[in-house]
């Protein structure tokens, strides 16, 4: 009887008048959570041997995408929403804030963003706009401001559009970097960002604070490099899709916690190499994903490759290893020199195709192919990403010279094309297997 009363009460709550927009938001949110949970289940069910170190990372994603929690909550720290990989997170930690990276990967929010952004905009930008316009994720809602670098055209216009929802600090990244003046210019931009952060948090950034945060991130980078070396192992001890997920989660937690979790995972993986507990066979074709970022919950590409019998050995994307690969050099501990190092690190080694001259990407790919014994490249291209599309010719030519097969997949966040993609990947991997075994 009591129970029934409760039900009646609940119904009474539900039946309060709701606007159309609110109802729609609820449906969207439900879909998004469902999508995220589905991906999490897929990721969790991959290993023969359960990987205990992964629990933290999967939980973090679960918290962010389905439990609607936020790391900034419960602490006094302000959070700042970042995009791309050109913003020094060291500065934000030094100012007493926490950075979260908000580049979106959900096809549900991308569908919402479609109404705001032009048809040809890339799904990443659409997903961000969808999240912001409907206030879907608390991670983004609780941010003090968004810091958007003007990298590609989509991001540039996104910065403008986002201003109607939240304070936006646009950071100009020069598109050429050959001359010293351009580096100096970017340095000045970073000083501007520093002033913005100081104003927002009310803390003054001293050289000690910046040095400390640089150390924190250096520790994270050291662990990431350890994971990078572990991934060189053939056969692999961890699925590539999981590695990408792990690196993805760096967006949502404080660097200290994340680093210690990654250290535990690395320990476990090194133990596995010793015990010969591998995640796949050595003979399987080793694939590298290059191009547009693979952002959770859009992990379909690596999962499809693995389902078709390949190994995602490594990725060269900005949500993966490119993000945390390059360390910051600390030559002197005064603020000016530290800022110079940051400007150097966040502009020069970046292989983002938004830069006019980006030949270094080819060298980087060549080096990675050699280090990771790559058999084939998957050029992941999000529809609408012109920068990556235009560099495809250059990469293809380089791969032709090396004799490495490459397949270009142009896709969206939605999952309608999964079966078509599967056929292409299966054919591609079949081709690699054929050439690999006929060679031997």
């Amino acid at each position: 009887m009591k129970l029934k009363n409760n039900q009646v009460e609940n119904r009474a709550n539900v039946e309060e008048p709701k606007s159309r927009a609110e109802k729609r938001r609820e449906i969207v949110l439900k879909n998004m959570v469902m999508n995220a949970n589905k991906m999490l289940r897929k990721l969790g069910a991959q290993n023969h041997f359960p990987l205990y170190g992964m629990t933290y990372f999967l939980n973090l994603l679960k918290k962010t995408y389905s439990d609607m929690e936020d790391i900034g909550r419960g602490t006094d720290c302000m959070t700042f929403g970042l995009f791309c990989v050109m913003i020094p997170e060291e500065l934000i930690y030094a100012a007493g804030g926490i950075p979260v990276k908000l580049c979106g990967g959900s096809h549900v929010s991308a569908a919402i963003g479609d109404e705001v952004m032009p048809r040809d905009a890339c799904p990443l930008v659409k997903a961000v706009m969808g999240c912001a316009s409907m206030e879907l994720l608390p991670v983004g809602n609780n941010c003090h401001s968004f810091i958007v670098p003007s990298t590609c055209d989509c991001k540039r216009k996104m910065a403008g559009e986002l201003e109607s929802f939240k304070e936006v600090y646009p950071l100009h990244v020069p598109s050429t970097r050959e001359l010293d003046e351009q580096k100096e210019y970017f340095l000045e931009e970073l000083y501007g960002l520093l002033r913005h952060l100081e104003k927002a948090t009310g803390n003054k950034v001293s050289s000690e604070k910046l040095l400390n945060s640089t150390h924190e991130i250096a520790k994270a980078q050291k662990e990431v490099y350890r994971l990078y070396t572990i991934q060189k192992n053939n056969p692999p001890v961890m699925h590539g899709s999981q590695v990408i997920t792990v690196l993805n989660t760096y967006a949502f937690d404080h660097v200290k916690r994340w680093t210690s979790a990654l250290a535990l995972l690395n320990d476990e993986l090194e133990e596995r190499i010793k015990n010969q507990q591998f995640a796949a066979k050595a003979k399987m074709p080793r694939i590298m994903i290059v191009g547009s970022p693979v952002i959770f919950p859009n992990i379909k590409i690596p999962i499809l490759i693995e389902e078709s019998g390949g190994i995602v050995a490594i990725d060269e994307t900005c949500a993966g290893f490119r993000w945390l690969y390059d360390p910051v050099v600390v030559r002197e501990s005064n603020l000016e020199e530290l800022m110079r190092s940051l400007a150097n690190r966040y502009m020069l080694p970046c292989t983002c195709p938004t830069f006019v001259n980006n030949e270094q990407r080819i060298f980087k790919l060549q080096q990675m192919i050699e280090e990771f014994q790559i058999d084939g490249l998957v050029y992941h291209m999000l529809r609408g990403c012109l920068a990556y599309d235009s560099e495809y010719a250059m990469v293809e030519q380089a791969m032709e010279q090396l004799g490495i097969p490459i397949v270009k997949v142009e896709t969206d966040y939605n999952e309608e094309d999964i079966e078509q993609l599967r056929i292409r990947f299966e054919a591609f991997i079949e081709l690699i297997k054929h050439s690999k075994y006929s060679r031997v």
Partner: protein
Amino acid sequence: MHKHFPKLRWALLILGFALSTFGVYIIGKKFTLAYIPVFACPINREGIIDGACYKLSHLNGIFGVTPWVDIGLFFLGVALFIVIFGRMLCGFLCPFGFIQDLAFKLRSSIKVRSAIRFGDKYNATVNLIKWGFLFIFFAIWVFGINFCDICPVKGFTPLIAGAKTTLHISFFVVAIVMVGSFFKNRFWCNICPMGYFIGLFHQISLFRLKKNCKACTECGYCYEACPMEIKSIYTEREKSNITTCDCLFCSDCIKVCPEDQALKITFLGKTIYTSSREAFFYNNSGLRGKKDEA
């Protein structure tokens, strides 16, 4: 071993400075057979070996005055030093280089302000000055004056060892170089005629700076660290030998290089010192001794 190479360099610099400034006190003997092509001022009588700078800048003073055998021996010695060591002498032995390094280190340790860099803009100017000094060094005796009159080293090593010198115009040069090397890493080396003269023979010197172009990520830290601001070190994408006339082999670029085996110093093709990620974290990010905190 590669982790501790920067320390080895400092040890050698200190040793070089000590021996060429008060070596006679320590060893009790002076080598007069050969002359080392660095600025080790011969006015200072306590140096274990004299610099070749005095004789090279007084070419009118040796030809026709000293016997031909001595001249031959002198040039043979200098040539041997140049071929075997090259500008390695600048980075590892030069006493004046050590003083400049010390001044620069002092600035960074008392956190004065950011260091000065010439940058792209003034590279051409610096180059011009360098050639000007090279001309002054070898040929200014034609006009009856001499490089020693403006030599900044005269104000350092002899004074430290207690020898008497007269400075005159040199005083201003000394002042400029002192202030300069406080703010700019190896200020004098950028325009040093002696070092540049050695550097001109870098093609036949046995020490080489080599690069694995594939491993390079063009992060540009080497360029930031380079006291001579050699930009080609990170922009080079074809050649593996990237030694230039300016390279001092100070090995700072290798110290700050985060890529495994991307940069290395070789002697006769044998690797002496190479970059690695492990050594990078050890030497640069200040993580040394902070491991346990986490």
